[in-house]
C-alpha cells in the first residue's frame, strides 16, 4: 500500500499540486473578496482593504506555483502554449484558458490597487475567472466517464475544497492581521467555518454513496469487460478508499479545530493552533486528492 502510494505520488504529484494550488488561490481570493465587501460596511473601505489585501495578493504567486507545477505533467512542456487551441471542445483547454485569465486579472487588479484604484468589477471578474477554472478542472475528469470521476462527487470535491481552502486560509490571514478575534465575535468568521463543516459532511456522504460502485465484479465474462478501461480504474479502489478516509479525517479534525477556536474565542492565544489546524486541513485535502488521482494512475502510463 505505502509503496504503491509513493509510486502514484511520483507519477501524479504535478496534477495534485496544480489542482490544489489553483483551488487554494481561487478559494482564498473569492473568500477574501466577499469578506472585503462585508467589512466595508462595518469598518470602512480603507480598513477593509488593509485587512484583506495581503491574502488577495498572495493568491497570485500561489496560482503561479500551481501553473508551473502542471508543466511537469506534460511530456513536452515546451509545447504548452498550444494547450488552449481546442477551447471549443476540450475542458483542459478551457481550464488552462480560465486559469490564465484568472492570473492576468489578478495581476491587473493588483496593479490598479497599488495605484489606489480598487474596482469592485475587476475583483468580481477575477473571482468569476478563478471559479470558472475550478469548474473546468472538475469537468475534465467528469467528462472522462471513468468510475469515481464521472460522478457529481468530482464537482462537490473540487468546489468543496475551493470553499474550504478559502474559508480556512482567510481565517489565518485575518488572524495574522490581528483582527480575527474581533470578527470571530460578530460571527463573520464563525458562520463560514460552520459552512466548511457542512460542506465536508456533504462530501463524506457522497463518498459513502460512491465507494460501493468501485467494486470489481471479476466473474462477469463479456467482451466489454475485457476491453473497458473501467476495471483498470476500479483496481485502484483500495488505495482510493484508504486515502479518502484518512484525508477526510484530517480535514474534519482541522476544520473542527478552527471552528472550536473561533467559538471559544481563544484565537489570539491559540494562534499557533489555528495555523496548525490549517496545515492539517491542507494535508487532508492533499490525501483526498491523491486518492482521486489514484483512480487514473493505471491509465497514465
Amino acid at each position, binding site marked *: 500500500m505505502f509503496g504503491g502510494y509513493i509510486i502514484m505520488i511520483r507519477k501524479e504529484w504535478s496534477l495534485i499540486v496544480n489542482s490544489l494550488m489553483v483551488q487554494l488561490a481561487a478559494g482564498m481570493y473569492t473568500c477574501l473578496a466577499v469578506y472585503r465587501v462585508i467589512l466595508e460596511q462595518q469598518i470602512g473601505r480603507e480598513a477593509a482593504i488593509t485587512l484583506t489585501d495581503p491574502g488577495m495578493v498572495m493568491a497570485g504567486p500561489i496560482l503561479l506555483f500551481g501553473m508551473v507545477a502542471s508543466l511537469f*505533467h*506534460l*511530456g*513536452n512542456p515546451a*509545447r*504548452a502554449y*498550444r*494547450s*488552449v*487551441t*481546442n477551447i471549443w*471542445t*476540450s*475542458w*483542459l*483547454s478551457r481550464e*488552462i484558458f480560465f486559469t490564465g485569465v484568472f492570473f492576468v486579472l489578478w495581476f491587473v487588479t493588483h496593479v490598479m490597487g497599488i495605484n489606489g484604484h480598487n474596482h469592485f468589477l475587476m475583483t468580481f471578474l477575477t473571482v468569476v475567472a478563478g471559479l470558472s477554472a475550478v469548474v473546468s478542472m472538475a469537468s*475534465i*475528469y467528469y*467528462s*472522462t*466517464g*471513468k468510475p469515481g470521476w464521472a460522478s457529481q462527487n468530482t464537482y462537490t470535491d473540487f468546489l468543496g475544497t475551493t470553499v474550504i481552502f478559502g474559508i480556512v486560509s482567510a481565517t489565518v490571514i485575518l488572524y495574522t492581521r490581528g483582527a480575527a478575534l474581533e470578527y470571530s465575535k460578530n460571527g463573520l468568521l464563525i458562520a463560514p467555518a460552520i459552512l466548511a463543516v457542512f460542506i465536508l459532511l456533504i462530501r463524506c456522504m457522497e463518498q459513502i454513496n460512491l465507494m460501493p460502485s468501485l467494486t470489481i465484479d471479476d466473474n462477469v*465474462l463479456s*467482451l*466489454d469487460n*475485457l*476491453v*473497458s*478501461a*473501467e*476495471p*483498470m480504474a476500479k483496481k485502484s479502489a483500495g488505495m482510493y478508499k484508504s486515502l479518502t478516509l484518512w484525508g477526510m479525517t484530517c480535514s474534519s479534525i482541522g476544520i473542527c479545530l478552527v471552528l472550536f477556536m473561533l467559538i471559544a474565542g481563544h484565537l489570539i492565544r491559540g494562534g499557533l493552533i489555528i495555523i496548525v489546524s490549517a496545515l492539517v486541513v491542507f494535508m487532508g485535502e492533499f490525501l483526498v486528492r491523491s486518492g482521486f488521482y489514484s483512480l*487514473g494512475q493505471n*491509465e*497514465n*502510463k
Partner: protein
Amino acid sequence: MADKKYVMVIDLKLCIGCHTCAIACKQGNNLPNEVWWNRVMTFGGPTMDTPHGVFPNLKMSFLTLNCQHCDDPPCVKACPAEATYKREDGLVMQDYDTCLGCRMCIMACPYNDVRTYNENHPQYYLDFPVGDQSAKEQQKGTVSKCTFCYHRLDAGLSPNCIEVCPVRARSFGDIADSDSDVSKLLEARTHTQLLADKGTKPSVFYLI
C-alpha cells in the same frame, strides 16, 4: 478521400490467436520495445493464452484490440492541442509534432490500453528501427496509437495486420462502398462493436 469511410472487420470465429497481426503492426510501424498498438487477448485472464470455463470444459477465445477509430471520438474532443484529430476518411490520428504529452486522450478513451505514452526516448532491441521507413518516427513525451497504417493506405495498400492474417480473420475497407468486402461481411454476418453503449461509434466491427 472525402467519400470514403474506412472500417475494420474482425471475425472472432476465425481468429486463432496467433499474434501475427500484433507482430506485423509492431514491426511495420517501428514500435519501440514494450509498445503494442494491436493486442491479442484471451477471455480467461490478463496473461497470454488463458482459457476460460471450468475444467475440463475449457475454451480458448481470442479478441484483438487496437484503437477503434471512433466516429465520435472522445479523444479528439479532449485533446487540448488538436494533436488528436479525425481525418475525413474516418481515421483518428495522433500528430506527434504537436502532442503535449498531457495524456488527456488516454483518460478520455473508454478502451483500455489502446494508447501508449512514450515517457522516455523510444528504445529498440536493435540499435535502430527495422520496420517500414515510411512509418512516422516515435517521439519522447508523446502518445501513440494505431493509425490503421495510414502511410500504407495513402500508398494504396492495406494495413499491416490485414495483410498477414493467416486465416483471413481480418478485413479492411470502405463501408461507404456497398460492393466492398467489409460491407458484404457486415450485411451477411451478425456483428458487434465494443462498448457500443458509450456512444462513440467505433469503426472496428467484430463478427460473432
